[in-house]
């Protein structure tokens, strides 16, 4: 049985510690142990290539949830300039689980919105673990409309386990806020690119998930339900998440197969968390290229294509 990604990563961490030890010896004692280092490095690459080469749905689930993965604001920092964060839904609140603002992608002003997870305990709490609230979705819509007004494209970063389902969020209309966003995103008269960078959790993802292009990072997931939740319902056993992850078809390749996703963005070997710069560069290239394509399209055609793109999704039998 293959080791889980978590177990594997622990082993890799040990290997890295060992490499570092040898390096230190080299430095401290002046001995040339570069052969040994090269061998260990090659071993590491080999292991990574093997383990990350054909990851299962469950592997991807774990990679996508890796707390070391770059989050939205990491990508923003690495890909954009002049980022100016804008807060608040102008109604009732400000939601730390959803960020947004204006920024420049090369020479081009864009608006971005995205889920934001927290790195340490206090930020995780502030970000509500990436579970966005109605205030977050409404902030996102406000900013997207601002972007539309000034004819700037919109980029959405999805990375959420799901929408917040607390009592307060229910009271503040979490359903309505997601439905409204989906509805309005079909009406925004500027290009929209959606990127799933980590977890694409169900309705919480879709609430900022309508676009002219939907990209997924190589090790992200997009699912109608968390695999554990699915297992709990189907087999009454939440521990069978790994099985559920396979049947749910939550990988980028499955999503692409059904036309739900347009492009899979390559990650550095071993996942984006290993090399933020490389991950950001890869994503930035994809964004620039897709934006350039979308800029060629007239607004009416853009809206028609966006409609058709989503309208055609579904598999059923016709004719009895």
């Amino acid at each position: 049985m293959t080791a889980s990604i978590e177990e594997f990563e622990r082993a890799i961490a040990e290997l890295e510690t060992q490499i570092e030890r040898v390096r230190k010896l080299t430095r401290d004692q002046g001995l040339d142990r570069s052969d040994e280092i090269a061998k260990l490095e090659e071993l590491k690459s080999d292991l990574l290539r093997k383990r990350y080469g054909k990851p299962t749905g469950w592997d991807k689930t774990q990679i996508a949830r890796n707390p070391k993965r770059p989050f939205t604001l990491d990508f923003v920092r690495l890909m954009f300039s002049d980022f100016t964060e804008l807060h608040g839904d102008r109604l009732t609140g400000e939601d730390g689980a959803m960020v947004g603002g204006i920024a420049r992608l090369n020479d081009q002003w864009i608006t971005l919105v995205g889920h934001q997870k927290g790195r340490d305990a206090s930020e995780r709490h502030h970000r509500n673990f990436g579970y966005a609230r109605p205030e977050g979705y409404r902030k996102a819509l406000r900013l997207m409309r601002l972007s539309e007004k000034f004819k700037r494209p919109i980029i959405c970063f999805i990375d959420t386990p799901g929408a917040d389902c607390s009592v307060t969020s229910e009271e503040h209309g979490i359903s309505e806020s997601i439905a409204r966003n989906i509805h309005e995103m079909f009406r925004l008269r500027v290009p929209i690119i959606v990127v799933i960078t980590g977890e694409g959790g169900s309705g919480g993802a879709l609430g900022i998930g309508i676009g002219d292009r939907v990209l997924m990072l190589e090790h992200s997931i997009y699912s109608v339900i968390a695999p554990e939740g699915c297992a709990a319902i189907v087999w009454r056993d939440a521990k069978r998440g790994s099985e559920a992850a396979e049947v749910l078809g939550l990988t980028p390749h499955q999503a692409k197969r059904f036309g739900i996703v347009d492009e899979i963005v390559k990650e550095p070997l071993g996942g984006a968390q290993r090399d933020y710069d490389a991950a950001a560069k890869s994503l930035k290239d994809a964004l620039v290229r897709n934006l350039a394509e979308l800029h060629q399209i007239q607004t009416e055609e853009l809206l028609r294509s966006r409609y058709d793109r989503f309208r055609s999704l579904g598999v059923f039998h016709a004719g009895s």
Partner: protein
Amino acid sequence: MANGWFGKKRLPGAEVQEAPPSIPDGLWTQCGKCREVLFAREWERNLKVCTKCGHHFRLTAPERIAMLLDEESFVEIDGDLTSANPLNFPGYDDKIRRHGAASGLKDAVVSGHGTLDGYALSVAVTDAHFMRGAMGSVVGERISRAVELATQRRTPVLLISGSGGGARMEEGLLSLMQMAKTSASIARHHDAGLMTIILLTDPSLAGIMASWGSLGDVLLAEPGAQIGFVGERVSQQAHLGKVPQGFQSSEFQLTHGQIDQVVHRKDLRDTLTLLLEFAGAPGVA
């Protein structure tokens, strides 16, 4: 209006799960809320609302259509669409067969067009008796087509939810995409200046509510329906803790500004008629 809609024959699949086996089927039924044993004929004349406590029993989609639309006006469309099993999800084909046999439905939705007090409109009704009314590709497709037909004919559309499941996980992401698809159709209908009316009945949850179930010009709900973002099972998993009295009831959603009106079943047709008149819907001669 309103008397004897179900007088002719009992429709299949209705509420059988609520009648305890000790009571002979057909003559008597028992209220799921107050436990009163009700004389079936009287209960049916009362539109399947408990004559004692006012509990609104769940209806099937065909019952709902019979109750609301003008007699003989309903024309079903897209009845030939049936669910596939795109992910080869274990047991899904079998589940569809079982639910189909038990409910007499081909899937969790019935859709078509008809008239209501003479007003032409499209209508789609999801039915919790089939896989809890969860939104698979067929449900999404039929709803979108019903909305598109309304846009094309420039009539209002009435969407009625009786969907406890929201998404149908057996279809994976494709199920999620039905939220996008149905909302897209409604956005176009809206842009055409035409009315969308949503009627929420017990239960209306999850993916339905986070898409078309929230997107009416007007949202009506039957009394005491469960309406909300997550169902009980998920909210237990999410450790919501103690929820307030009446959480996720129609009345709770009314208090929190999410729906326009809670309407007793006997008043539904009248209320819908007024809304259709307000919208300036063209009548059909």
